[in-house]
């Protein structure tokens, strides 16, 4: 596009591009900052999008860019696909979509490095820095790509959500990573053998698969967040290849921010990042419905009975979980809550940090069902309130309300912060059966004196409750 400009402007064009890159970076930094709090988050996302637009438009004036057919074609095709995916996706499938987008981002960075290598006829024209950057960009980008798609497969059920592993796999993975770094070093030292590049690419793709496969399905959000950080680093490495400041700065920014966010997510689950990556949590979990329920009794309730209990309560807390998302019951929950509120019952929602399939996912689902977000209470906010709550409706949640997290030091979830629903006057568990949750352990709450079970599909049970409320 620079060819349309007069000579005088061309002279200062490279400097102008750098200045606009600086402006774009400012938008990114401000955008991420605004994304930190609910009131300004949307504006923050728009800021970041404006930064991206500036970055792309300014780059088109780069004097190296002389042909535009592929550029226009690529942007139109990619833009349409992105638009379609973003518009069509169900809110429940959000984690899967982020995984896919992230995979594409990682792949793009690897392709940029590879393309730059293939574009130059003489490989020896690259200096050591360039070759190392190409190697790292391909390595991180490729493993982000395959890793993200394995995470996608686990979330959507194409691949077993169980931790698939065998002893020594972690050692092999770490060994393969170190070996790849060694190969990249050798590639930079002696780039004359093109096979080496293919070996690096191949191993990197494989590492993405073998390092995500052993991690259980419930940990996928953390994995995606970590891979998100990687794709930022891959972009920064591509920036070193092209000596492009905007790529380096934005990539580093996302890489670092993603790492912090990953850490915050791990803390919410009371686990360390290393434990998530190498722990293979849940690997030993028995099949659903593990034995041991035989001699304990549970109290069952019916829609009619429950309707009376909640209609005459003064405070009801709803604790939604993964099962609610699966049953797509968020809209009917809202209907029930509205009916109760019109009777003067105070209704709040207690959201565990890892409820749903991804931290914050449950908030998105309930927001979609028009639940005002000031009624959505974080764990720390809602826990002191249970003591004054009449009825807690636990819908499709299990491990996050399991008292064993506080009482059984040998259990797999010991130490995980939970919602203290057992302090309420009554708890109602909506569940299909007495089967175990993700952690694979029994839940003593089900057998507690104050608890009643409402068996069945969460959506159907709530519909029954909703109808029964008309009769009360």
């Amino acid at each position, binding site marked *: 596009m620079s060819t349309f400009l007069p000579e005088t402007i061309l002279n200062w064009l490279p400097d102008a591009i750098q200045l606009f890159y600086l402006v774009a970076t400012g938008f990114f*930094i401000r955008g*991420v900052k605004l*994304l930190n*709090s609910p*009131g300004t*988050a*949307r504006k923050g*996302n*728009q800021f970041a999008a404006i930064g*991206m637009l500036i970055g*792309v438009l300014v*780059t088109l004036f780069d004097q190296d*860019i002389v*042909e*535009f057919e*592929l550029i226009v074609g*690529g942007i139109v*095709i*990619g*833009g349409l696909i*992105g*638009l379609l*995916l*973003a518009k069509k996706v169900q809110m429940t499938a959000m984690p899967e979509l*982020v995984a896919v*987008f*992230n995979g*594409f*981002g990682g*792949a*793009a*960075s690897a*392709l*940029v490095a590879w*393309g*730059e290598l*293939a*574009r*130059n006829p003489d490989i020896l024209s690259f200096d050591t820095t360039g070759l190392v950057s190409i190697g790292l960009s391909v390595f991180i980008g490729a493993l982000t790509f395959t890793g993200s798609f394995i995470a996608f497969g686990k979330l959507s059920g194409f691949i077993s959500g169980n931790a698939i592993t065998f002893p020594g796999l972690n050692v092999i993975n770490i060994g393969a990573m170190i070996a790849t770094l060694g190969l990249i070093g050798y590639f930079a030292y002696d780039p004359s053998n093109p096979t080496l590049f293919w070996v690096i690419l191949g191993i990197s793709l494989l590492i993405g698969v073998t390092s995500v496969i052993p991690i259980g399905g419930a940990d996928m959000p953390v994995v995606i967040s970590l891979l998100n950080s990687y*794709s930022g680093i891959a972009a*920064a490495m591509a*920036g*070193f290849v092209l000596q*492009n400041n*905007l*790529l380096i700065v*934005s990539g580093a*920014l996302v*890489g670092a921010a*993603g*790492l912090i*966010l990953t850490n915050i997510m791990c803390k919410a689950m009371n686990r360390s990042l290393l434990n998530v990556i190498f722990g293979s949590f849940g690997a030993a979990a028995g099949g659903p419905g593990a034995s041991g329920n035989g001699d304990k009794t549970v109290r069952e309730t019916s829609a009619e009975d429950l309707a009376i209990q909640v209609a005459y309560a003064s405070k009801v807390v709803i604790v939604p979980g993964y099962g609610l998302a699966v049953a797509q019951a968020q809209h009917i929950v809202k209907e029930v809550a509205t009916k109760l509120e019109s009777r003067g019952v105070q209704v709040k929602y207690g959201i565990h940090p890892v409820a749903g399939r*991804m931290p*914050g996912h449950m908030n*998105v689902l309930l*927001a979609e069902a*028009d*639940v*005002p977000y000031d009624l959505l209470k*974080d764990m720390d906010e809602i826990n002191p309130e249970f003591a004054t709550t009449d009825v807690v409706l636990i819908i499709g949640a299990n491990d996050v309300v399991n008292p064993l997290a506080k009482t059984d030091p040998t259990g797999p979830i010991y130490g995980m912060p939970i919602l203290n629903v057992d302090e309420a006057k009554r708890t109602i568990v909506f569940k299909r059966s007495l089967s175990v949750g993700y952690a694979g352990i029994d839940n003593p709450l089900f057998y507690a004196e104050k608890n009643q079970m409402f068996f069945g599909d969460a959506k159907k049970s709530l519909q029954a409750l909703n109808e029964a409320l008309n009769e009360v």
Partner: protein
Amino acid sequence: MEVDLTLLLFIFALASFIGFELISKVPPTLHTPLMSGANAISGITIVGALIVAGSLGNPLGKWIGFAAIILATINVVGGFMVTDRMLEMFKKKEDEK
């Protein structure tokens, strides 16, 4: 324009520090949108893809750049739009009050 490697590393390190400082006490409500928004920004690699696809050189390299543009654009456009879709729902409720 020849650029000094130390300068690039300097920029990289500073930007990383800013990234570490930017995320502080994010409420869990925003974890998903924040991840998704940051993910869209990592699509910045589109800038690199533009340079590779639009510059002169071996056709193979340019076509690889073309593929990179498609993937990066999906990441950027889809990422920002889906994040906006999520955040729009939070926003709406606040205005009603």
